[in-house]
């Protein structure tokens, strides 16, 4: 810009005069301008861009980490390892400093080796005899005390642990995972775990690169793998790493606390600061609540499964789903917190970032999530009611069926009884009939008999009559004879 070419004239009013500058309202916008003589509230004013006042924000330098590669020194070749007979596995810890631990079969440190200058600066003598987990914690603490990592600043800290072992035993990894959960120091860092072969370990040493990254970056430019911190700060690289190893993330509560504490160092409106803190604390509480809820729901679900009660299982499953959905919804919180952190970093870097904007976004997201959760819950509740209604309906149906069956059976029984009755009656009738028949037969027979008797009587009478006739005739004959005789 050459002299004379100064943007445009702005026409406004002085809203408020401060000691070093004034705020003016011009063309629908508020500006800070340098104070000149006779500044008065309400005064109309013409000004140009060169009158604008640049508010000086306090700049806070924060620790920048020196690239690892530059400070790396030549390694001692592997042939110089002591006690190599006792060594069953190796663990290489890269924070920068980088340290190699030799472990015996019980995962006890039998020897160690400082792999770079920074490691040389640490007093590591106490390492010998420590368990591997204890040793990792000790190194982390030493590195933080020596200023190689700051657990409380805004930057994410990474500790890379590479295990080198002949067998596939995961003992070391398990120990580290447990340590990550239990140790307050380890909660405050991200722990990346990778495995490598002894050959790779030696290669990495020769190439003077970080072993765990070397292994994860086979096809990558070696320039990518200079510093652990720089590597994991690159999201795509961190993602690529997870194909080879695992990253145990920093404890959520620690992230929150860390960012919260750093808010103090920021030039920012106190109210906004407080607001962010409040949101953070709330999110932290919510997060742990959700975690707790999932754990509880899981237990309840297991118990329900064991009990075998269908309704109870369905109920527990529902609650578990709900708890998990809740926890998942809070993962978004984590992103927001990360964003705040990034913004803080930007701001410390003197870049502009609208924290307030983001904060509002977080709150809006929260409201949205709550609304969603509420809706989900209602839906689930409705589902539940529906299912219950279904169950109820099923039950009623079954009962109705049972009733119907019973009635049917009752009817059958009655029918059968009726049939039986009918049969009996029939039989009775048959019997009567038969008796009647028999009676009739008898009567017939009687009648026959009588007839026959009557016949016989009749015959007899006939025969009597014949006999009498014959007697008469004889008498007559006799008479005749007599008469004839008489004659």
């Amino acid at each position, binding site marked *: 810009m*050459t*002299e*004379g*070419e*100064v*943007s*445009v*004239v702005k*026409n*406004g*009013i002085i*809203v*408020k005069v*401060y000691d070093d500058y004034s*705020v003016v*309202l*011009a063309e*629908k*916008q*508020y*500006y*800070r*301008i340098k104070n*000149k*003589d*006779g*500044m*008065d*509230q*309400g*005064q*109309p*004013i*013409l*000004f*140009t*861009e*060169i*009158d604008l006042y640049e*508010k000086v924000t306090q700049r806070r330098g924060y620790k920048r980490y020196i690239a690892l590669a530059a400070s790396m020194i030549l390694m001692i070749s592997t042939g110089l390892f002591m006690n190599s007979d006792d060594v069953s596995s190796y663990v290489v810890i890269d924070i920068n400093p980088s340290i190699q631990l030799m472990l015996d079969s019980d995962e006890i440190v039998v020897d160690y080796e400082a792999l770079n200058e920074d490691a040389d600066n640490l007093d590591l003598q106490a390492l010998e005899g420590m368990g591997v987990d204890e040793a990792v914690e000790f190194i982390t603490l030493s590195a933080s005390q020596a200023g190689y990592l700051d657990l409380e600043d805004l930057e994410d800290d990474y500790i890379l642990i590479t295990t080198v072992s002949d067998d596939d035993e995961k003992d070391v990894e398990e120990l580290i995972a447990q340590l990550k959960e239990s140790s307050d120091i380890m909660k405050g860092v991200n722990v990346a775990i990778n495995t490598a072969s002894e050959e790779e370990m030696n290669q990495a040493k020769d190439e003077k690169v970080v072993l765990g990254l070397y292994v994860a970056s086979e096809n990558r430019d070696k320039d990518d793998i200079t510093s652990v911190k720089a590597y994991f700060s690159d999201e795509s690289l961190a993602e690529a790493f997870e194909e080879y190893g695992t990253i145990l993330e920093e404890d959520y509560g620690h992230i929150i606390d860390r960012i919260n504490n750093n808010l103090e160092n920021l030039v920012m*409106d106190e*109210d906004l600061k407080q607001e962010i803190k409040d949101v953070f604390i709330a999110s932290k509480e919510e997060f742990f609540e959700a975690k707790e809820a999932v754990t509880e729901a899981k237990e309840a679900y297991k118990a329900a499964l064991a009990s075998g009660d269908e309704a109870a299982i369905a109920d527990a499953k529902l609650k578990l789903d709900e708890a998990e959905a809740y926890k998942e919804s809070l993962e978004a919180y984590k992103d927001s917190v990360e964003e705040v952190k990034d913004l803080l970093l930007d701001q410390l870097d003197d870049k502009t970032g*609208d924290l*307030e*904007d983001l904060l*509002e*976004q977080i709150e*809006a997201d929260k*409201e949205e999530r709550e609304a969603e959760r509420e809706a989900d819950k209602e839906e689930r509740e409705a589902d539940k009611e529906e299912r219950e209604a279904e169950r109820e309906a099923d039950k009623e149906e079954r009962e109705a069926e049972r009733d119907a069956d019973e009635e049917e059976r009752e009817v059958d029984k009655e029918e059968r009884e009726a049939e039986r009755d009918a049969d009996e009656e029939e039989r009775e009738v048959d019997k009567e009939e038969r008796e009647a028949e028999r009676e009739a037969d008898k009567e017939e027979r009687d009648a026959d008999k009588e007839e026959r008797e009557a016949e016989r009587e009749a015959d007899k009478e006939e025969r009597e009559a014949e006999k009498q006739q014959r007697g008469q005739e004889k008498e007559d004959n006799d008479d005749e004879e007599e008469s004839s005789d008489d004659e």
Partner: protein
Amino acid sequence: MDANRLVIDLQKNTHSDACKNFILEHKPFILSTISARLNRYIRSENEEVFSIGLSAFLESIEKFDPDKGQFYSFAKLVIDRRVINYIRGNEKHIHEDIDTIQIKDNSVSLEEQFLLKEELKSFEKKLEFFGITVDELVESSPLHYDTRERAITIGEKTSHEKDLVDHLYRSKRLPVTKMCQRFMITRKVIYGSKNFIISVIVVFHEKLDLIKRWF
């Protein structure tokens, strides 16, 4: 184009549109030169000293000679001289008749400025009620013209909705969700310029009409 050559070109006809435009384009230059000499801001283009500056600039176009150096340095010098003369003349004037000068300078705006000052004081107090300082409004002002217009429209609309205003005055926070629903806007529009929007609502709701003119 080189300023020197341009000015020489303009010298041929200082009544041309090109010359007029050239002067208008350099208002900021003229203004800042005057303002620097006076060590105070010019209140408006109606201020006498501004017309002194304008005619001094025209004079510098007419009298510019490239052999003497760069045009802008020359123009600055001319404006400076004329402004100094003006101040001296005024000072003489003040000694002679202080009242007429005062009235002449501020006849229109003196009362208005007083009223505006009162409005601004109550504006400041209201903002304080919402936990906003005037200073914070600077960061909250949308940089882009369209965004600003939208924020002002939202603020004005909100000031007409009684329930929204009530909510704001009760909770000291913008009813963002309701506003979004009612005005069919996204949260993003509001978040960036929350304080700015509140300031607009205050101006409209409190009927700070003199300030309102600036929105």
